[in-house]
């Protein structure tokens, strides 16, 4: 292929042609083309597993393509390493930050710079740059005292100090409140206006429409199209992304019955030094309703999940009640005996054992005698019952796999999540707790999983869902609460709140106790 040099015009800032990257088990990129102009905010859109991250890693020199060419301002380049990428003028803000918590902002940035610069010498530059772009950070502050949004600013400022010509942002808003997202967008627009190109990776269509000039859409490693997001509808973009009509799920109002899960002044200290302690959590979940808990990871989500599952025991047994009985001191098995089923956020290694077959993974939680599966009799595993159950899950939830004997680790994320949700669903719970039901799951499978959870609620199960995706919670919850900084807001009916309101709560501003507008919902 020839280097693209449009006669007369300036060459594009970055152009990729025919990029392919093959991993042993998957083709991550298959002949992908991408063109980014100077000063353009360019979205790379695709579902989880579509190959966005691989493509970005190739641009940033973290991995190398198996085929294809990269042109930088019209000239072919081999980007050998991130250092070489930075030298060209490419900066990247990763989804997961790499900051030392015990150091200051200036010290962190000094460590990450390619040229040697003392923290003290950098401080004024950091201040200058951060103020110029509306990303205020104090260079002398210690990182551990900063919120996630502030830490992200540090990462962005670090890139900006190198005066990049192309800034790659990988899912930057997944950790931000809606208000912080708007601020970030302002800064990015200012940056683009000065001629810096931005590659913006996301699967959130509304953000891309609000921010981006151009979009390249990937599907299953292939280029599925390019679009001008502002001229598209979310629906048409989504169809480009998943390639078929969007399925939907239905939530009809229905009456609730008795309280099946109650938190009463639940307190729990985290055993992780950087974890978040839970403070005086109050919540009730009734038969026949879905209560959603919004909030950004790291605000006590891990701790709450462990307190619910029984992996962490509570000092006060009455602080957690299952089916009206004190359960705070019970272990996970005893809680399951009382009718709890649980879908953890971590699929491989917690929700399923990667090296064991799906049948053996059905046994993982199906053994509890109260579920009545007959998987264990007199201490012996009943193979036939176990395999039957696994087959039922696979069939009922349309799990794509090589049968009940396939290792759990061989399934894609979405299919494994379908299996785990299916397993817990078919165990006929009285109370179901689901963490991040559709994290890393494609849209088709997401809808199936959400519908399965809604069906449980319609059958009278009390359901608690923890999710980072507000859109999802608004789609499937009857009531919604926010967990921020280890405190839980009251749970309000979906109809009486808004994404904006919940967004404000997610930043930690809410009255923790009673007398809110929707308290009657709990009565």
């Amino acid at each position, binding site marked *: 292929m020839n280097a693209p040099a449009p006669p007369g015009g300036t060459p594009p800032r970055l152009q990729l042609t025919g990029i392919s990257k093959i991993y042993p088990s998957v083709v991550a990129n298959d002949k992908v083309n991408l063109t980014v102009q100077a000063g353009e905010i360019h979205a790379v859109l695709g579902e989880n597993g579509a190959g966005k991250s691989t493509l970005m890693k190739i641009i940033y020199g973290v991995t190398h393509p198996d085929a294809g060419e990269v042109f930088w301002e019209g*000239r072919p380049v081999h980007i050998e390493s991130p250092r070489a990428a930075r030298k060209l003028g490419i900066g990247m803000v990763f989804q997961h930050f790499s900051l030392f918590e015990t150091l200051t902002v200036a010290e962190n940035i000094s460590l990450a710079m390619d040229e040697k610069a003392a923290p003290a010498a950098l401080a004024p530059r950091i201040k200058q740059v951060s103020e110029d772009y509306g990303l205020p950070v104090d260079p002398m502050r210690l990182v551990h005292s900063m919120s996630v949004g502030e830490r992200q600013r540090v990462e962005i400022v670090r890139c900006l100090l190198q005066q990049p010509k192309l800034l790659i942002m990988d899912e930057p808003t997944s950790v931000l409140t809606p208000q912080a997202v708007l601020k970030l967008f302002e800064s990015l627009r200012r940056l683009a206006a000065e001629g810096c190109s931005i590659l913006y990776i996301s699967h959130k269509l509304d953000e891309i429409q609000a921010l981006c000039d151009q979009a390249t859409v990937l599907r299953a490693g292939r280029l599925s199209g390019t679009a001008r997001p502002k001229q598209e509808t979310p629906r048409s973009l989504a169809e480009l992304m998943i390639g078929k009509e969007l399925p939907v799920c239905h939530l009809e109002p229905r009456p609730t019955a008795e309280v099946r899960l109650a938190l009463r002044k639940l307190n729990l200290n985290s055993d992780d030094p950087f974890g978040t302690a839970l403070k005086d959590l109050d919540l009730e979940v009734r038969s026949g309703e879905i209560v959603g808990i919004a909030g950004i990871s790291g605000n006590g989500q891990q701790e709450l999940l462990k307190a619910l599952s029984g992996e962490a025991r509570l000092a006060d047994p009455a602080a957690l009640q299952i089916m009206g009985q004190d359960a705070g001191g019970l272990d*996970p098995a005893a809680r399951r005996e009382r009718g709890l089923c649980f879908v953890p956020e971590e699929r491989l290694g917690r929700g399923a054992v990667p090296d064991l077959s799906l049948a053996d993974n059905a046994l993982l939680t199906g053994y509890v005698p109260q579920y009545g599966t007959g998987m264990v009799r007199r201490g012996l595993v009943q193979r036939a019952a176990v395999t039957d159950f696994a087959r039922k899950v696979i069939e009922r939830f349309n799990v794509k796999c090589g049968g009940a004997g396939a290792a759990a680790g061989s399934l894609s994320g979405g299919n494994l999540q379908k299996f785990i949700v299916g397993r817990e669903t078919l165990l006929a719970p009285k109370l179901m707790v689901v963490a991040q039901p559709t994290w890393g799951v494609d849209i088709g499978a997401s809808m199936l999983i959400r519908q399965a959870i809604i069906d449980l609620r319609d059958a009278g199960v009390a359901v608690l869902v923890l999710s980072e995706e507000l859109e999802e919670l608004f789609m499937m919850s009857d009531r919604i609460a926010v967990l921020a900084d280890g405190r839980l807001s009251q749970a309000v009916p979906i109809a009486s709140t808004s994404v904006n309101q919940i967004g404000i709560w997610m930043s930690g501003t809410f009255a923790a106790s009673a007398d809110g507008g929707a308290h009657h919902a709990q009565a």
Partner: protein
Amino acid sequence: MLRLEARPEPSRAMMVASPLIAAAAMLVTGSILFRFLGQEPLHAFYVYFVLPVTSAYGLGELLLKATPLVLCGVGLALGFRASVWNIGADGQLTMGAVAAGCVALYFQDVESHWVLPLMLLAGALGGMLWAAIPALLRTRFNTSEILVSLMLVYVAYLFLSYTVHGPLRDPDGYNFPQSKMFSDSALLPLLFEGLRVNLAFVLALVLVAGAWFFCSRSFAGYRMQVSGMAPAAAAYAGFGETRNVWLAFMISGATAGLAGVGEVAGPIGQLQPAIPGGYGFAAIIVAYVGRLHPLGVLLAALLMSLLYIGGESAQMELQLPSAITGLFQGLLLFYLLAADLFIHYRFKPRLREAPVAAAKPAEEGV
């Protein structure tokens, strides 16, 4: 240059082939070694690996030496599957021997069929008691069971030495540090006239079958396997870690204790300052060469036993040093660990030459 890359899933073929590759590599290295020692490799191999098993007596010795290896190895394999690292089987073996010895000496003058079962029981309990210490410390204080169980081996050696120098010393033994010889009813019956292999080998086979059943059919075996493979999944499912650690130590302690009984009530016939062999340590190799599978342990124990008696044969016939046995054992484990890498990894052929040029327009950028 070849590069390693992760396999999409572990290779089952390599899992089976790895011990065979390791054995072959051990033989190749061994032949080089023999050459340097001035031996004709083929003859040395014959003396080492074939000659010992050409007679009925040799076969009997093979099974005799394999017995404690099978017993210890099966127990350790079950524990290792659950990621409980009991390194102290030799200490548990020693304490089992002491406990059984006490019973035998107490009933020195009693002619009864009950003495032997009682000794087996005492031996198993002795091993379990010794294994209970690391289990307790691990579950209560989160200590490393590797270090604790290993250190307790040497305590057990000293305890045995104390008993035969002190309370259990044969008063008519001319001050030799050893106990009285056990009476006939305290000795394991021989399986064949003229061979030294005894009933303990049958017991070992029964335990292999039991362990196989435990692993493949019982829910407790499944729980231990999950605890070993994915501790977080075990916690999620409600399989307590404490129970897992205790079960693993009790099983491996009991089988090691039985191995100790097999030694003192078998070929030795009395308590001595040291139970020779280091079977409890060799059994760690046996467990891994046997892929932590009971049937594999049986085969690996026979191989290891052959290394032992082959080493003796080499000492006698070829005047090679006794260290040759340890050397072959070490080679086997070393090659096994190396070959095991290829269960999860494989060589990636370089399809195209590496891109040499770094970012060419270096004058660009900052």
